[in-house]
């Protein structure tokens, strides 16, 4: 089986995640966990990746550094997982139901080559 990386991207928003009510935040976390658990239950999870914090910096040509949030980028990278599948199509099938899609985000599926 080959490995594929699923990259989650979200539309840039101005909502401060620390202001999301705890119950809502928990429900969202549960959604992600249940979705990832479903992939793991099929024995297809290679790595549950790393979660990325929301703050960060962007380095541009000429040594220009901007702080996040990344106002000039329409979408930001959320996090990633690595799954096992026989083909790109199969990996894409695994991505269905991803909670990122519920918040207008996207899932990018890329084969890992070495």
């Amino acid at each position: 089986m080959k490995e594929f990386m699923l990259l989650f991207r979200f539309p840039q928003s101005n909502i401060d995640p620390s202001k999301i009510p705890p119950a809502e935040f928990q429900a969202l976390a549960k959604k992600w966990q249940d979705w990832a658990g479903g992939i793991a239950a099929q024995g297809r999870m290679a790595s549950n990746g790393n979660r990325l914090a929301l703050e960060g910096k962007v380095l541009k040509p000429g040594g220009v550094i901007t702080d996040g949030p990344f106002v000039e980028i329409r979408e930001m990278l959320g996090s990633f997982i690595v799954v096992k599948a026989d083909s790109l199509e199969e990996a894409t099938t695994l991505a269905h139901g991803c909670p990122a899609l519920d918040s207008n985000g996207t899932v990018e599926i890329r084969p890992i080559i070495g």
Partner: protein
Amino acid sequence: MEKEFLKRLFQQEFSKMVAVISSLFGLEHIEIAEDVVSETFLQATETWGVKGMPPNPTAWLYAVARQKTLYYFRRNKILEKKVIPELVARQEKSQEIEEPDFSQQNIRDSQLQMLFAVCNPAIASEAQIGLALRILCGFGIDEIAEAFLSNKETINKRLFRAKEKLRTEKIKMQLPPENEIAGRLDNVLHIIYLLFSEGYYSKTQNQILRKELCIEALRLGLMLAGYEKTHLPKTNALIALMCFHASRFGARETSEDGFVLYEQQDEALWDQELIDQGKHFLYLSAEGEEISSYHLEARIAYWHCIKADTREKWENILSLYNQLLMVNYSPSVALNRTFALYKANGRQEALVEAEKLKLENNHFYYLLLGELYKGFDNKKAALNFQKAYSLAKTETERTGIQKMIDNLS
């Protein structure tokens, strides 16, 4: 009654005495230790049968074993040539042959050393479980054969190979150096976990034997918890896990050979004392940062000790199974996770996920599907139960599944 007492006494003392004598002779001569102990038991049975039981049977056993050990030292040529020079070299100045020391302290230390020696990763794990049952738990060859649904000859061969391995790998009876203990402990805990599972999910129908296996695994776990260097959160998590599972032993058993499923168990039969002990160790396991698979499994088992079906309970169980799958995928964890998904998020979602699993050689998979379709699409439920029936491995399982099919109509 007396016979039962003797059996228990011998089983308990076997592992202690073999450990102490082996620590004296060296692990490469473990058979001598086993012989000495077996002969001691034989003499005990004969003498006690005529004269009655002495006031302190354990002290009697130790005294006789001590004599027999010294006798071996003096008479056995292999020992004279191989072991004694080594022993003398080890003891350096002293020319006196050491006697086995059956003090509480030395028994404990020797058993711990033996535990680490037997659970050395150099030995293949199937042989290791056999060796652990024999040397650490004092089980007889016929009992081990029964537990594995095998025969004595196979078990003897397996044990022989395991002991060969002890010799060829030059495994010593000593605790690993302090900086290696935590790493080596993983393998020890894994073997204890396998011992427990062997008892809990064993193929044998012998309920007493199964329970004894579990009790022994628990005892070994507690031994590790009693020693400062191995008293780690993951040790406590494993103990908690075993306590919670073992608490349901009484409730699982039926007069027939079958098992009472969790949903139908009478919670009044759950062993509250073991549940409390489990909670105590679960609390201790929460120290530190590490979340081992034992932590997750112990928490799952904890929630199962609460009978009431609440949303909170099943959401917690589902979340724990989700995490467990990330550390430790297995088809049975995947199936249990899907059942928890059904209880927490409902039938519709669980059915979609269950259909994706495609564990097509696993009868438990079809049992789960049947259960999910039951009362919703009985035709599909029946179809799945029938598939489970054709894949089931034992008569007991087939009888149980037939009942489920009959209940549908």
